[in-house]
């Protein structure tokens, strides 16, 4: 079984490999590769006219769609290919009675763009979460909806003096002076429940000239549309390899509640 899989993976590593007596040219490899996310979406939905296979149903599963889905896996990731969850997911999506489509216009998918930046002159990375927004009346666009915490806001709590004491109000909150003048102890003066809004902070720092953008390093797409599952899609650059371009990099089983938790805690935006 494992040998069989290895043979398959090896067989798609070169543009002119001979597979079952058929040579795949560079041109054909280009066609097989999912160069645009739009291509990925069309193939996922079994709606790409270039990948129309003969419709055949076995146990309610559309085999044509199943073929398309298998080709959208990162086939060089044997862990993903071997995982029984992958098979379950593909069978679930390919079930003829499931309306398992994904679309640009869905509200439950996100892109995380990992960007190169300099912050106060030092190089770093920042992960922005983006989401398509709009409607047929005004048009569509991608909008930034979240950002991964990019600054560690540490606090020094070494003194009972560095806070607003209980009767500070009686002295006209005189110690607010320290909040404005002692950067390292600022959080002592803020509620313990305070959660910084990093997107607002980012907007401020960019406007203040503290952060410079140096391009997008890579993008990960998160799709939450499929009931009880979510999956991620990443771009794999592999010259002359058919399993290349935008491919499924991970599949997880998850209910709606957990999806909401993940979106808020990993993508840093509201569900």
């Amino acid at each position: 079984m494992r040998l069989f899989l290895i043979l398959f993976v090896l067989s798609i590593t070169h543009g002119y490999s001979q597979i079952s007596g058929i040579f795949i040219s560079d041109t054909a490899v280009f066609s097989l590769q999912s160069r645009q996310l739009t291509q990925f979406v069309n193939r996922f939905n079994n709606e790409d006219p270039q990948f129309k296979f003969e419709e055949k149903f076995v146990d309610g599963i559309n085999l044509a769609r199943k073929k398309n889905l298998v080709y959208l896996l990162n086939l060089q990731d044997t862990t993903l290919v071997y995982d029984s969850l992958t098979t379950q997911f593909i069978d679930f999506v390919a079930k003829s009675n499931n309306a398992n489509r994904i679309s640009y216009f869905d509200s439950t998918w996100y892109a995380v763009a990992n960007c190169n930046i300099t912050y106060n002159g030092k190089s770093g990375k920042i992960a922005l979460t983006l989401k398509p927004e709009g409607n047929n009346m005004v048009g569509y666009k991608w909008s930034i909806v979240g950002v991964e915490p990019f600054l560690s806001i540490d606090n020094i709590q070494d003194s009972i003096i560095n806070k607003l004491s209980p009767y500070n109000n009686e002295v006209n909150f005189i110690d607010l002076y320290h909040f404005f003048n002692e950067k390292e102890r600022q959080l002592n003066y803020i509620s313990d429940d305070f959660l910084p809004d990093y997107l607002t902070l980012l907007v401020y720092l960019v406007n203040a000239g503290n952060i410079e953008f140096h391009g997008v390093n890579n993008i990960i797409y998160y799709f939450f549309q499929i009931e009880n599952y979510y999956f991620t899609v990443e771009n794999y650059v592999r010259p002359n390899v058919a399993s290349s371009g935008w491919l499924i990099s991970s599949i997880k089983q998850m209910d709606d509640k957990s999806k909401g938790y993940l979106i808020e805690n990993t993508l840093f935006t509201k569900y």
Partner: protein
Amino acid sequence: MKNMKHIILTILAFCIISLDAQVFIPGADSTETSVPSDDEIITMNTGYDTLAFNKGVLEILAIKDLEQEAQRKVDFLSKYIGQIATKDVEVTRDQKRSAINQALKLFLDENREIQVSSVNSDKVEAYPVRTYLEHLMLLPYTSVSVKWSNVYIAKDLIMVSANPLVYEGVISVVQTFKGCYKETQSCYQDVTYKNIIIRVEAEQVFNGENEELVFVVKLGNTSVTETR
């Protein structure tokens, strides 16, 4: 049962590879037919920038016509780039300048950016389209060849704006670049996969009798997705 599913999945994956015989190769035979000759290119007026339709709803537009127009734009750009980069002494500097100006007309504006990459570096840099084209003209090689092929056009145009009416799509192309030095007989060659944004903008024009909606196809930002 669990193993059985794995086997089925793997066999399925193995079988798919043999399907390439059925795969339609986009643009494989169409890129040459719609491109005018090099001589025509230099003097060609891009007045054929527009596709006219009697009704202004994109849903009833002939999407295929828009695709063909987008493909024509890419073909023109490919030819212009060839003209700009060529070291053929019969192509004068003025003709190259003219080709740059014609190529610029294919884009939304001169602020559109073109990403550039090299097999010798992981770095991808972006230049405004005019700067990119002028760099092409000044390449230090004694002979240069730039060819574009394998156009894939996304069928799903997405509305960017309702007023003015603007739609957006994307095209994938493969660029084969070869630059050689006569003295050392050495060459640099790379194959670059690019995605190009296309914009379809609606314009009201008066055709002499009444107003009609015209759709203009323009090229936008261009990214490099792979270089080898």
